[in-house]
């Protein structure tokens, strides 16, 4: 094979933080900011800063999240990846001390403006948390709760009084959502059992089914498999990949191997709330541009 030509880099000697290619983090950031992913952007984040009081939790993060794919957010604890995830459906609004600056566009619409309906936003951008948190109700009610609240199906008191009962619609929804979450076969004969009686892995898939039941477009997952054993984890990972055919999935994970296995793009946040590198997952794990990212993904910490 022929040798590749290398361009002499004049800036190499005076760069403050060196990288594998001799570029500064700033140059690298400039590169991936201009990077175009295969699909159109579902979510476009521009210069996002988050402060918790004096703590600057996210520093000027910009990234496009392409639709119908899996985007993984990795990085050490306290790097801001969960904060970033929670900005995507304004979950940080619930934290009083949080101050958010910058722009997050969802299908080209700014979500950080006063007239945004948060209930509608969170319906379209669903979330699954680290610990499975099903409602202490039956499997069936866990699925129908959301759509009923959103008025998508009517099985409540008013519906009963007015004689309108979408039992069939509710049944279909329960079956469809559980099937989509790869749980139907395991729980189809125990729909009226309390969801808290399911195993941890089943509870987590129920939470994913619950999220799917309101027909979201984006699914945010914060460490969705970290509380599960390897078999349950594998089921969740399979499910995530399957969901990406229809939905835009963003996953925060501490498990780098998991990010490598399931994601199309990977964003690496490092301490101090910085997004250091964001690229195709192959690129991040085979040839990262930043030395800090190289050290992080290869386990050379500190």
């Amino acid at each position, binding site marked *: 094979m022929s040798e590749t030509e290398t361009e002499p880099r004049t800036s190499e000697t005076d760069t403050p933080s060196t990288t594998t290619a001799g570029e500064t983090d700033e140059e690298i950031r400039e590169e991936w900011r201009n990077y175009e992913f295969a699909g159109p952007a579902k979510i476009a984040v521009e210069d996002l800063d988050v402060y918790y009081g004096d703590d600057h939790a996210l520093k000027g993060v910009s990234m496009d999240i392409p639709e119908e794919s899996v985007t993984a957010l990795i990085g050490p604890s306290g790097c801001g990846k969960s904060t970033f995830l929670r900005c995507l459906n304004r979950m940080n609004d619930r934290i009083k001390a949080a101050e958010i600056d910058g722009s997050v566009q969802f299908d080209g619409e700014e979500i950080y403006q006063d007239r945004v309906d948060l209930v509608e936003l969170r319906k379209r951008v669903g979330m699954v948390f680290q610990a499975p948190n099903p409602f202490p109700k039956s499997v069936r009610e866990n699925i129908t709760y959301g759509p009923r609240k959103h008025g998508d199906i009517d099985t409540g008191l008013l519906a009963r009084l007015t004689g309108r009962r979408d039992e069939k619609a509710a049944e279909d929804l329960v079956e469809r959502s559980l099937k989509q979450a790869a749980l139907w076969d395991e729980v189809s004969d125990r729909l009226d059992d309390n969801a808290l009686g399911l195993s941890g892995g089943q509870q987590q898939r129920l939470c994913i089914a619950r999220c799917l039941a309101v027909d979201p477009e984006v699914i945010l997952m914060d460490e969705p498999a970290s509380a599960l054993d390897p078999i349950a984890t*594998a089921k969740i*990972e*399979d*499910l*995530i*990949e*399957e969901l990406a055919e229809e939905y835009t999935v963003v996953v925060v994970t501490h498990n780098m*191997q998991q990010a*490598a*296995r*399931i994601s199309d793009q990977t964003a690496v946040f490092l301490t101090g709330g910085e997004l250091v590198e964001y690229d195709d*997952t*192959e690129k991040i*794990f*085979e040839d990262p541009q930043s030395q800090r990212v190289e050290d992080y993904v290869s386990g050379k910490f500190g």
Partner: protein
Amino acid sequence: MARERYRDDLDALRADVVALGEDVVAQLERALDALEAGDEDAAEAVVAADAEINERYLDLEQACIDLFALQQPVASDLRFVAASFKILTDLERVGDLASNLGRYTRDTPESRLDTVDVRAIGAETVALVEAALDAYEREDVAACHRVAERDDEIDALCRTAGERVVRDLLGEAAADGDAWGVEAILEDVSRALLTVRDLERVGDHAVNVAARTLYLVDNDSALLY
């Protein structure tokens, strides 16, 4: 699905390695035919086709690297990807050797090889690479050992052939005494020796394929030198 795709990727790697091997064998056969017929055009076609083999080799190597980086294979999967990664190199080298044979024919089509039964040795090496590929595809341990044994026979054939080339052709030159004739004969000798050596190397690569297959099936390094 992630696991399913991972299994599919592993199966695809196996199929692609075998397909590359089959095409390399075809290259080798075409090179031997061209050599026997002294057909320059056919020889040139073999040389030209090596670029495509190299390209596919690099693609498959990248597929292995992707599997390592993204799936972190362990246990038998790890041995399979690692072995395949090595086997690819051996197959690519067999392609290079076929290309060498093509080059010899292209450059000196009239050269004499009549003291050596290249066809017979060539057929043996082709059969050996095929047997090694088959052992890899079916993960057949006994077949791997047979490949190693058969290569010993090829080595013996090549040794004898090499000796005969030197004895017959150089003997002829000595008898001739003509300086111009000696030079022409030396060219024939070196080409014949290179041909024999390259075929012997093909056999060695077939053994490497078998050795890596043995490692992948049984974690057995018996045939690794």
